[in-house]
């Protein structure tokens, strides 16, 4: 019925919903929200069919690629090797992303029915949300870099529009700008990288470029440069250091947006890209992957520490997203061994992070507050939210046997093969993650309510909002089990999740292996972190406060986000605007005054002086005539004589 050939339907349905809503949302009943929701539901169902078709082709032998490519060439200019192709490739990696995007997209659309009820620009919100889903689906389906880049920008613009949904709030407008400009900055690198690859390979097609890279047709330095530029784009979108500044501020947008875009899908576009182009990384110098690891480690550590002191619940979850993204990048940086674990983490992270965000949304919807200084003790008033949130927090921390545990464990195994230093650093980050997640839960859901009015007002969310929470909680628990081959086989994925994914991306398939020693160590660290967190932040959180007073410098450093934002602002104020002033002076003095005005002034002046020739006096005119005759006579005579 529907198979991989029709994979293009998956993005087409939400795109159609976007067009309908963008044009007509004012005239449709309920502003057309059900159209958007319906399109994503259909999209998800179709994704299941596509998955079934794909899994029918498994198992695949080593090096044997399964999947399907479809599409058409839209613009072809053979003289310069330019082909704009709308092409789709479906393979296991694509399937992971399709599953995540369509499922979480569907849940967020349903959740928004309750959360965004009564909010301004309701119809437009759903329109842009559908456009985002369409763009993201096309992004993961794209088989050539040009289409990838177009949809990359597409999700960027949707993110901008959605973050700035409440644009009457100045902070929201600023945050939208910040997000867009920061990611756009990274996108420039991406574009240059794509063009570099196209220049050497003569094509935008991904599989052709990978083949050429593996065959060694690119110069190694050239390829490394291009790959690092691609990583620059990925770093921008996935909020790696130093582009991480936009993600916490992006929480100005509505919470479902944060759940969908800034947790489950858009921010992992960078991770997806790096995973996809792993063959290029493999063919480049090792330094490229080391660079990725360093960037990832920096991001994850910075984020983990900052999560300990932030008070806005959405921001804490945002920093946890940064933490996770950094970890995913580190895993990718391990090369072939780390790709599978990174994709596994991406897969499970989508569920528990979306769960955490939607849980925050539930709290905000109920209490109209989002600062921990105003919350507390909500577990009694909001049981479903509280329990699902706890599940999500524990999954994030990596408690066995929740999904986060399996993902983190595989990353640790890959780290062990890579370097002891990296392994140690990741192990250190585990208790910190556990600590701040528990802190968040404790401050929000336990203890004495700090704002009695908010507490009185709180109530559990309507079913349309709480059912997605439950669904995600279930997935947060079980999604890790897909690594086991029997379970994988049961849902049609032979050789388990890892094996299936790795088959596409890397030469050697590692598959899943449970390293008991590593599991024990990580569990110990996580439990230790949980205990420390409980000690510090339960009840009145006195130990935490004491620690804050003991190390004021550190506390301030973390609260001010390591002053990175201030540094950027300084650069903008002095470097960018300084340069702009110089250019403005040039523009005003040279281009405008001299060039444009000057030409006019010269003409004016010339006219002013020339007019004195018209004296109106007969003798003057006669003189002019005679002078002309005299000149002609001289010329004529000297020519002739």
């Amino acid at each position, binding site marked *: 019925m529907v198979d991989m050939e029709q994979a293009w339907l998956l993005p087409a349905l939400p795109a159609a919903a976007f067009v309908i809503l963008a044009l007509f949302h004012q005239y449709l009943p309920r502003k057309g929200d059900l159209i958007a929701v319906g399109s994503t539901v259909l999209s998800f169902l179709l994704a299941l069919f596509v998955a079934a078709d794909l899994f029918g082709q498994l198992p695949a032998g080593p090096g044997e690629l399964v999947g399907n490519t479809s599409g058409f060439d839209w613009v072809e200019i053979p003289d310069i090797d330019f082909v704009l192709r709308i092409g789709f490739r479906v393979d296991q990696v694509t399937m992971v992303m399709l599953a995540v995007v369509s499922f979480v997209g569907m849940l967020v659309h349903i959740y928004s029915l309750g959360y965004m009820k009564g909010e301004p620009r309701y119809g437009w919100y759903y329109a842009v949300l559908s456009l985002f889903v369409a763009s993201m689906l096309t992004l993961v389906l794209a088989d050539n870099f040009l289409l990838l880049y177009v949809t990359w920008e597409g999700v960027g613009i949707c993110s901008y529009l959605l973050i700035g949904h409440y644009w009457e709030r100045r902070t929201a407008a600023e945050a939208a700008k910040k997000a867009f400009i920061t990611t756009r900055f990274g996108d420039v690198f991406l574009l240059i990288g794509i063009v570099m690859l196209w220049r050497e390979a003569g094509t935008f097609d991904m599989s052709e470029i990978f083949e050429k890279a593996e065959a060694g047709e690119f110069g190694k330095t050239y390829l490394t440069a291009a790959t690092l530029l691609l990583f620059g784009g990925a770093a921008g979108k996935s909020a790696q250091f130093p582009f991480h500044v936009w993600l916490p501020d992006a929480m100005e947008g509505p919470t479902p947006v944060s759940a969908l875009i800034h947790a489950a899908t858009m921010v992992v576009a960078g991770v997806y890209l790096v995973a996809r182009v792993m063959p290029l990384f493999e063919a480049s110098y090792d330094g490229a992957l080391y660079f990725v690891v360093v960037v990832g480690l920096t991001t994850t550590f910075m984020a983990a520490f900052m999560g300990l002191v932030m008070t806005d619940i959405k921001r804490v979850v945002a920093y946890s997203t940064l933490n996770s993204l950094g970890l995913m990048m580190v895993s990718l940086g391990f090369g072939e061994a780390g790709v599978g674990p990174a994709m596994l983490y991406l897969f499970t992270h989508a569920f528990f992070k979306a769960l955490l965000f939607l849980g925050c949304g539930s709290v905000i919807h109920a209490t109209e507050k989002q600062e921990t200084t105003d919350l507390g003790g909500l577990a009694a008033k909001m049981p479903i939210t509280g329990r699902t949130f706890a599940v999500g927090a524990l999954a994030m921390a990596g408690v066995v046997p929740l999904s986060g545990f399996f993902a983190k464990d595989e990353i640790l195994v890959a780290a062990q093969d890579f370097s002891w230093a990296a392994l140690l650093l990741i192990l250190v980050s585990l208790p910190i993650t556990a600590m701040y997640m528990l802190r968040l839960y404790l401050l929000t859901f336990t203890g004495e309510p700090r704002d009695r009015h908010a507490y009185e007002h709180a109530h559990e969310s309507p079913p349309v909002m709480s059912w997605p929470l439950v669904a995600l909680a279930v997935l947060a628990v079980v999604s890790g089990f897909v690594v086991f081959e029997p379970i994988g086989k049961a849902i049609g994925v032979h050789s388990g999740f890892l094996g299936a994914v790795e088959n596409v991306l890397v030469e050697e398939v590692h598959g899943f292996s449970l390293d008991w020693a590593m599991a024990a160590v990580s569990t110990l660290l996580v439990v230790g972190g949980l205990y420390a967190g409980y000690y510090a932040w339960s009840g009145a959180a006195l130990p935490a406060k004491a620690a804050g007073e003991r190390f004021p410098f550190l506390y301030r450093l973390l609260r001010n986000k390591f002053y990175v934002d201030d540094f950027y602002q300084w650069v903008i104020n002095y470097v960018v605007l300084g340069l702009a002033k110089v250019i403005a002076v040039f523009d005003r003095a040279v281009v405008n005054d001299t060039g444009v005005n000057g030409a006019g002034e010269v003409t004016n002046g010339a006219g002013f002086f020339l007019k004195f020739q018209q004296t109106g006096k007969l003798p003057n005119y006669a003189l002019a005539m005679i002078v002309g005759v*005299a000149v002609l006579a*001289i010329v004529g*005579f000297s020519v002739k004589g």
Partner: protein
Amino acid sequence: MTVAELVFYLLAILAVVAALGVVTTPNVVHSALALILTLVCVAGFYVLLSSEFLALVQVLIYAGAVATIILFGLMLTRGRELPSVPAGAQWPLALLAAGTLVVVLLTAVLDSEWPRDTGVVTLVGVNTLGGALFRDWLLPFEVASLVLLVALIGAIVISRQEEEGEA
């Protein structure tokens, strides 16, 4: 120096001096009188060139009619400044232009090659001239008379008094 040459030089000097007087003297009536002298000298030149008829015509029409009309015009247009009108403001430039012109002309005259030997001269009598005018050049002659007629009418029309109605 023959008589003819002597006469020529005298006439030439007189003509040039008179012309100088026409263009330099501030008194308009004096310059009109100087003009008459110049015209008469030119008539002398015609005599030297053995075109007596032309000399006759010159004296009659030019020195007689044209000069008289000019004197009439001077009389009728007496303004505040008359009779003394000094030179205009641009006389240096005029001098320069005229000077350039005379230099060029003289150079042309002295350097040019004439098409035939100018040593041999043929004289033309009045009857030959008359015959030519009324045979070969009849049409231009008639047109010239028309020109005179038109000029006459035009002059009358232009200088009519306003009380008799505008044209």
